[in-house]
């Protein structure tokens, strides 16, 4: 099977996965009891107004018809309107996506800046106290719950010490502490991942060859060993960035950042069905496309896979 047909097959199944998610979530949310019109118009709404709302949101139609309307909307790139704020869901997601994306980018840069040197150095000094110390620290960072760490850092570094704003979004400085929180949760895992790969690579013949040729230790570590050790990291990083939505859910909420995570949690609390659907679909799309992208990227980075070695 050539590359193009393989890619098209994957693309098709990605589409099926997304459609399945949309239908499943639609049914799950729509079996909840209650009249949305009363949420929208309040307890004193007259029957005429309730009927008008039922009509304009297609609530007076059978559920299969509503699913039809919803899928038709989706096909036109329209995710509907929020029940609570009446804002277009697409618009709401687009306004908030930059915040979440910059938070994710800040966090990724932070954790890689720390994890890469840690991984390389612990591989070089493997078995020594430094390596063991990092291992303990990594286990610790891996086991912390996101919401707890976010609260603690917010309390200590922002509220008590005043080094950072407590919460809210007023530019880049507001991203630092949430970024540190997310980075803290991932840095241990990445330090260990890079460590393991580096250990493997450092034992390989070509590294020994480079050393034999008299290359400096820095050149050996960062020019020869690291690029190869990073290949598996790319895969994991791709998936993690897509899955980061789970992490930002708590972090954004604690720091009151107007991103996708806050939007998702607020919509769940407000029973805002179209908004819940929108954020779930966005998350599903991110994961599915990251999967696809990593698959393609991996073959490009590592020609051995394409060649079938």
């Amino acid at each position: 099977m050539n590359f193009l047909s393989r890619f098209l097959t994957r693309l098709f199944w990605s589409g099926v996965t997304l459609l399945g998610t949309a239908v499943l979530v639609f049914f799950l949310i729509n079996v909840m009891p209650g009249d949305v019109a009363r949420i929208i118009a309040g307890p004193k709404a007259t029957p005429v107004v309730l009927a008008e709302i039922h009509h304009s949101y297609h609530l007076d139609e059978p559920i299969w018809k509503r699913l039809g309307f919803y899928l038709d909307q989706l096909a036109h790139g329209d995710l509907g309107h929020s029940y609570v704020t009446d804002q277009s869901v697409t618009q709401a997601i687009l306004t908030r996506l930059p915040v979440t994306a910059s938070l994710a980018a800040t966090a990724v840069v932070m954790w890689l800046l720390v994890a890469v040197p840690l991984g390389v150095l612990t591989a070089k000094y493997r078995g020594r106290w430094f390596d063991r110390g990092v291992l303990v620290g990594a286990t610790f960072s891996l086991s912390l719950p996101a919401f707890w760490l976010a609260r603690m850092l917010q309390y200590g570094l922002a509220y008590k010490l005043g080094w950072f704003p407590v919460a809210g979004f007023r530019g880049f400085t507001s991203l630092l502490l949430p970024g540190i929180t997310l980075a803290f949760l991932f840095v241990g895992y990445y330090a260990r991942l890079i460590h393991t790969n580096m250990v493997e690579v450092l034992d390989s013949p070509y590294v020994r060859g480079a050393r034999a040729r008299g290359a400096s230790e820095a050149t050996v570590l960062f020019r020869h060993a690291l690029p190869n050790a990073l290949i598996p990291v790319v895969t994991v990083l791709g998936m993690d960035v897509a899955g980061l939505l789970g992490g930002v859910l708590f972090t954004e909420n604690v720091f009151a950042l107007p991103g996708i995570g806050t939007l998702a949690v607020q919509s769940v609390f407000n029973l805002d069905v179209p908004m819940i659907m929108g954020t779930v679909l966005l998350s599903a799309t991110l994961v599915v496309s990251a999967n696809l992208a990593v698959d393609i990227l991996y073959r490009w980075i590592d020609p051995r896979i394409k060649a079938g070695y």
Partner: protein
Amino acid sequence: MKPNRAIRTVVALPGFVLSLAIATEFFSHRSNAMASAAMTNSSAESLSGSDGQPRRGGTLHLVEPTDFRSLDPAIAYDTESVPIVRLLFRGLLDYDDGVNLVPAQAEDWSISPDGKTYTFHLRPGIRFADGREVEAQDYVFSFERILDPVTESPGQGFFTGIEGAAEFVAGKARHVSGLSAPDSRTLIIKLKDPQFTFRYVLAMTFAVAEPQDVVQHYGKDFENHLDGSGPYRLTEWKRGIRVRMARNPFYTGPDGYVDAVDVMIGGDNSTEAMMLERGELDRVMAGPPEAIYFERDPRLRSFLVPVPTANTDYLFMNTEMKPFDRVLVRRAVNYAINKARLLRLTGGFATLANGIVPPAMSWTNPGLPPYDYNPDKARALLRQAGFPNGFKTTFAYMEDNPIYVRLAQDIQQDLQQVGIDASLRPANFTAFDLESSSRHQVPLGIWGWFQDYPDPSDFLDVLFNGRYITPTDCNNVAFYDNPSANRLLDQATASLDPAERTRLFLQAEDLIMDDAPWAPLIHEVLPVLYSPRVHNTAPHPVWLWRYEWMWLNPS
């Protein structure tokens, strides 16, 4: 028991927290400095006994956990968005510092002796934020817009008493015959029947002037291009992120103190309280833990302003369902509840409810039948009603509201004491609302009601007049229908004589409380935190807070 591995991990985490806390306490000085500043400020205030000289200028920083549904006055209808709408729009009437109506954009106003015709003359020179003068026709247009079902206004029902409204709503007339503007400054409203409370409707934020040309130009998108005649104008509304307002240069009424109002969207109670303490916000709503924390710390106590609300949280008994169709059973339930303990559950942020109409509505009813906590009497009444061994029932409540959850769990124990075995059934808002407002669904449950305007009819007539019972979407969740009470309520609402109305409503409340379809529980008091730099934070009985009257210390 020996500690296992899991326990050791659990011990390690607080170790980290402790070290973090020690480190931060060691380095911390800023927040203490802020709190001492607050203390100095509050003691200075207590010495002078006043807020000092009001000062213009500065930006008031507010926060909302969720974005407003809309700030379009035809749509906005909750305690958080209404005070903001009041900054952007003004209507014909307003309240003074109490519950008395005063003219706002009306220069003078009169009601015909038959109570059916309201005539208003607008003050000259009132302008929208775009500079255009407000005309009486704008009011006609705005009221018709609310009545139009397409607007989907939650306040439509308040205006259906206008003559010709029914024909307009049904699409049989292009205009409402009872609304007219003979000239640009005169507005005449004719009602179908006399309606005393219509004057209060005209003070609600639904009844403000919207610019006909701008609304017609933008249609439903008007909410993103708001143009009102209030003291402030909208300068930015980034949905889900922030709302910003600045002075309306064309406003001619009494000016607001602050130059701008900034509303941040997002955050939870504890984050917001920390932001307030650090000076990042000026006003936040506190949850019960934050309220207690601020109340107990002498350095922070002055931040806390308890705001009594015209609300009643109540236990309703469905009078159409067994065994609550028996008045003796309903009275027994009233005697079984230890309300003093309920009050403690709220952390003190409530007052005890003995009647239906909240006292915050300037309402006192000395004639109410007393239902003190008396389990023996409750058991005796149950015996008398034919339930010597009590009975089983289900007890529904809305789990989204933490106060209701606590009340429900506590009341369940009280009921158990007298032999009533009530199994708790929590539900989310929509499910609870759907079931409790439908006939024969919920025998026993907790619900609450907030005033729309300071008139007892808003509680007694709306919630207890049996003539309004509908199979679904019924606000009379006890499905209480007593012809004598209905008659009293009908007479009271039809009357135009304030003294007679009060007398009839008092009688009706006595009668209803004697029939006991409810056990009134508490009137909520909202704990609000203000930064010490904010002054004039005294709550208003209807608007709760008036941002335009608040002023700030120089930063």
